[in-house]
């Protein structure tokens, strides 16, 4: 099983050469995010992740979680690794200083998550879900709720969960039925069953704080009748410590295809005491404010598994000898088709990194910039890029993991190689936190109505115009000119076709998202190529140019298959009667 | 005028083989004379041994109760007194020599050259850097050359010599700030850690059973080596998996790797490709491991191991 090595060179390249992370230190509140801190964060997080968390990836997969009478034990080593990680302050990196965080930019948290997810996707979910709970309380919780829960969640001393899904309410949360009864003393009794709750129960910490979507008895039907509650596993006493046990129990854990190290629980709320967050009937709206970050996190999981699979496949291909290649090379990395697969893995993975980090920077700007219009523009970019970061990066995770097994051949199919685990882990990233279908519908629906995809296409076209003088970038600029034109045309077709029949965008959303993502990647590959041209004596930059060229010639043209598919609309998809299938 | 002084390493009873290797290195310096200095509390026998090393012209014996244990702070000042007569002062690159020679060099105001692998000329040498992943050819500046000799790069000098032995008095005040307390020799308890050991004895499916693995343990103990195993041996239950060497086990780089009854699957070889010397013993002359072994011996490991142990005794 190959070890994980944080791709620090590539990460620093994206941070410095692509997104100019140093600009963040000029924003109020982010003065500490200077280059030495950025380097220190990447270096030290890499060490702890490589040495204490990544080695548990395979063992965690083999062992899985154990359920026994309401108690869940995570795989061996997870608890100790979690405690070391949180005691070292990593979970509080971008959280409020008022509650024990370090107040550093989300962009740096993204770089750390890049490594955490690649090191151990299952493990990353424990602090990952806690982030959501923190954000909900930070944005919408009362002072009292914040004072009670936020500090321990920030430091990781307690963990949090998002209890949304029920058997009949997954993608459609308006169907939630869990009940909340007002006790007229500031508390509510919560009753119902939640499923697929990540980290609902485990053995790491003294308290688990569940954020639960539930309905009040007199709530309006549908999406406007859902409220959000805090339901702690242990009631918090006057000293701030866990006290009486609250009747919220783990009824069982799921046997899943992958991410075995993560406990996926059925949670039973048996008249457990809960506290209302914010206002009644606004729960779904509150949940949506956390949605962007949760979705970006899943995108990083996709990037993580892609990075892992790419590292393992390259290492294998450099050692494995089978049949002399046409160019005389003895190892399989010299076989053209193996090289094709590896370059595909490399280009897609590095592209996802650029998009993810750039989106994170826009998020930071949307929160910290003193100028409101700058904040809004940055927020628009985050809104646009969220479905792309989530859906495309997770699709990439699946594609790259699958290629990884193929590169290893028969050995890839064998568990011991470690490669097949990535396929099993990757699939859920396309599903949870809003299936990739939901992401695509969001892009062609809400985001299209906000005019965001169209605006960014214009921006990309403008940026491209400034490059067209540069001959050396012609290899990517020219294909991107054609690509942007086609994307523009397809987008216009789609907005018109939506008015004719809303099934048109619905039936082609996934292909549209893929096409949009590919062109977005091209936009970043131009930046990468430009940066690399300036420093060509270094192998790293030579590799960047070659990868940019591979992207332009071998990946970007996928859009030429997608465009006609999109523009064929929904009719070929929907015409068959239900019974004919 | 090249005159070499070698500082002998010993345990009170025997001049060790590393000193003999330093003598061989010195031969490459085209020296007018190669002399050995023996520092001991009582060193007549030691000096006698040193005098047999072929190529040595003289042995200096410096006896002093303070010299009973090799303490750098005590030996260095004495060597510095002698050094003025020599162009080169060498010691083997053992913990003894590494501890001692830089102190001498600094007091003499000259740089030191560590781990000479090859002598090109009296002032030009090859030495390893980056854990041996690169070799530098270096030239010592003017002045006395103080250096340590990489023992694995030179064979031991023959013991056919008969140098003169000369007792020397070095009357200087010696420091008392460094005092020997005790020495615990290894091999009395735990075996070395597989990942860090310089020698590893490994067994494969050919060993046949858990009980039979005792022959591997036994040889390892005689060599002060760690014990490794192939995946096949671990899968068959002969030995726990923390001994597994290979792509999915431990990747190691000992100076000596001895593989008994291991066929040499690619995954196993991936774990040992950076080993210094690979020795393979297997009944099957076509076993793949012979393709990578520096020394291969076709035969029955149960016969060969006892013979090896006899040779070591």
């Amino acid at each position, binding site marked *: 099983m190959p070890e994980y090595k944080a791709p620090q060179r590539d990460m620093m390249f994206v941070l410095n050469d692509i997104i100019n992370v140093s600009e963040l230190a000029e924003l109020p509140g982010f003065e500490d995010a200077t280059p030495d801190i950025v380097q*220190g964060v990447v270096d*030290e997080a890499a060490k702890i992740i490589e040495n204490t968390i990544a080695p548990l990836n395979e063992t965690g997969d083999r062992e899985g979680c154990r359920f026994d009478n309401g108690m869940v034990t995570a795989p061996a080593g997870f608890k100790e690794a979690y405690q070391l990680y949180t005691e070292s302050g990593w979970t509080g990196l971008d959280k409020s200083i008022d509650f024990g965080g370090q107040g550093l930019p989300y962009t740096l948290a993204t770089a750390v998550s890049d490594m955490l997810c690649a090191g151990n996707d299952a493990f990353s979910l424990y602090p990952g879900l806690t982030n959501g709970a923190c954000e909900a309380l930070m944005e919408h919780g009362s002072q009292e709720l914040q004072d009670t829960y936020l500090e321990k969640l920030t430091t990781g001393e307690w963990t949090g969960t998002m209890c949304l899904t029920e058997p009949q309410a997954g993608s459609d949360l308006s169907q939630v039925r869990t009940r909340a009864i007002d006790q007229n003393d500031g508390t509510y009794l919560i009753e119902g069953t939640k499923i697929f709750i990540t980290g609902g129960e485990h053995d790491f910490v003294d308290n688990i704080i569940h954020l639960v979507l539930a309905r009040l008895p007199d709530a309006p039907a549908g999406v406007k009748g859902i409220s959000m509650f805090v339901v702690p596993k242990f009631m918090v006493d006057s000293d701030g410590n866990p006290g009486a046990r609250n009747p919220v129990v783990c009824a069982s854990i799921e046997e899943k295809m992958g991410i075995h190290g993560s406990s996926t629980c059925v949670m039973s709320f048996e008249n457990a005491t809960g506290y209302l967050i914010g206002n009644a009937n606004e729960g779904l709206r509150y949940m949506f404010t956390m949605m962007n970050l949760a979705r970006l996190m899943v995108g990083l999981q996709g990037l993580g598994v892609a990075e892992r699979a790419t590292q393992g496949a390259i290492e294998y291909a450099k050692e494995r000898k089978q049949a002399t290649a046409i160019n005389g090379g003895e190892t399989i990395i010299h076989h053209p088709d193996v090289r094709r697969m590896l370059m595909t893995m490399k280009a897609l993975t590095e592209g996802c990194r650029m998009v993810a980090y750039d989106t994170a920077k826009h998020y930071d700007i949307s929160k910290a910039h003193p100028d409101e219009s700058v904040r809004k523009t940055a927020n628009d970019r985050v809104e646009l890029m969220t479905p792309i970061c989530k859906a495309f990066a997770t699709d990439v995770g699946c594609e790259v993991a699958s290629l990884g097994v193929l590169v290893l051949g028969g050995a890839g199919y064998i568990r011991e190689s470690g490669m097949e685990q990535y396929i099993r882990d990757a699939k859920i990233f396309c599903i949870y936190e809003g299936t990739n279908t939901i992401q695509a519908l969001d892009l062609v629906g809400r985001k299209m109505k906000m005019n965001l995809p169209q605006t960014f296409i214009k921006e990309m076209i403008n940026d491209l115009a400034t490059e067209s003088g540069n001959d050396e970038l012609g290899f990517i600029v020219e294909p991107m000119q054609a690509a942007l034109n086609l994307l523009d045309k397809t987008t216009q077709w789609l907005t018109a076709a939506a008015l004719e029949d809303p099934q048109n965008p619905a039936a082609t959303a996934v292909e549209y998202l893929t096409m949009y993502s590919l062109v977005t990647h091209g936009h970043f590959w131009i930046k990468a190529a430009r940066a690399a041209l300036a420093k060509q004596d270094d192998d790293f930059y030579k590799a960047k140019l070659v990868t940019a060229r591979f992207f332009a010639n071998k990946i970007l043209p996928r859009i030429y298959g997608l465009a006609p598919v999109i523009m064929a609309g929904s009719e070929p998809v929907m015409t068959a009667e239900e019974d004919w299938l | 005028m090249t005159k070499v002084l070698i500082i002998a390493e010993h*345990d009170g009873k025997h001049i060790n083989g590393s000193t003999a290797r330093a003598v061989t290195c010195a031969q490459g310096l085209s020296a007018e004379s190669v002399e050995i200095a023996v520092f001991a509390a009582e060193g007549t026998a030691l000096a006698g041994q040193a005098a047999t090393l072929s190529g040595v012209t003289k042995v200096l014996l410096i006896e002093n109760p303070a010299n009973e244990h090799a303490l750098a702070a005590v030996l260095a000042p004495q060597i510095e007194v002698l050094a003025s007569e020599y162009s080169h002062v060498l010691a083997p690159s053992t*913990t003894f020599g590494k501890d001692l020679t830089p102190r001498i060099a*600094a007091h003499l105001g000259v740089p030191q050259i560590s781990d000479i692998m090859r002598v090109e000329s009296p002032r030009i040498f090859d030495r390893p850097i980056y854990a041996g*992943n690169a070799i530098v050819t270096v030239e010592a500046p003017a002045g006395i050359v103080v250096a340590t000799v990489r023992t694995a790069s030179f064979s031991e000098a023959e013991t056919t010599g008969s140098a003169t032995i000369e007792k020397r008095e070095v009357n200087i005040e010696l420091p008392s700030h460094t005092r020997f307390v005790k020495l615990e020799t290894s091999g009395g308890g735990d075996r070395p850690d597989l990942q860090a050991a310089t020698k590893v004895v490994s067994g494969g499916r050919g060993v046949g059973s858990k009980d039979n693995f005792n022959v591997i343990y036994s040889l390892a103990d005689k060599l002060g080596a760690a014990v490794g195993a192939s995946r096949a041996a671990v899968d068959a239950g002969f030995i726990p998996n923390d001994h597994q060497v290979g792509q999915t086990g431990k990747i190691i780089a000992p100076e000596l790797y001895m593989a008994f009854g291991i066929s040499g699957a690619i995954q196993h070889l991936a774990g040992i490709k950076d080993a210094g010397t690979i020795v393979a013993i297997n009944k099957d002359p076509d076993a793949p491991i*012979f393709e990578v072994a520096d020394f291969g011996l076709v035969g029955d490991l149960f016969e060969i191991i006892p013979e090896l142990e006899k040779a070591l005794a």
Partner: protein
Amino acid sequence: MKILVAVKRVVDFNVRIQVKADGSGIASDGVKMSMNPFDEIAVEEALRLKEAGKAEEVIAITIGPKASQEQLRTALAMGADRAIHVETDEDIQPLTAARILNAIIDKEEPKIVMLGKQAIDDDNNQTAQMLAALANWPQATFASQLEVDGDVANVTREVDAGLETIAVDLPAVISADLRLNEPRYVKLPDIMKAKRKPIDTFTLADLGVEAAASVKVLKTSAPATRQAGIKVETVDELVVALKERGLF
């Protein structure tokens, strides 16, 4: 008491170094650099002594270009109190390093100077011993265990024959070996705190240090590739061959 710990910026131990084809050295552009692993162990030991109440101050020092300050920041983030940067772009060899450290010892008067036993780039294993010589202090090299008892340090050293324990009067120079300790993981809040800890910068001229004569590197080559092996006929032949190589 004060403890001075010297740390060196080296190519990260995970990097597979490439020898330049023209023999002029190692390809180092864009290569990941880190604190020498043995030096990290030295810093850790110094911090443990401080946490045990045996020392009041741990000072980290490095000699090198501006970028070496990164390693000082790491030492500060681990817990060192302040740092000294002797700034130079020249290649500094052990004797010159020892002279520099000796000048600093005169200024700071530490009771213990800790170094890693060797740097993983040049693998010289000399600086600690040379410093001890110049300062006329005891040296305790290859330490795998350290106990400080008043003005004496009892140091167990990893030697070829096993474990040797010596007692040295302080002040002394100690070099750390691999098994001395396992360095702590740096905590994020401490990375932030390290920013506010002082780093004082000096040049060799400021310290009145003259560079020593250096060993000249004539060329850098890749090591010989693994040669095909031979089959021996008897155990005796094998034993002779292994003895030749110093392995038996």
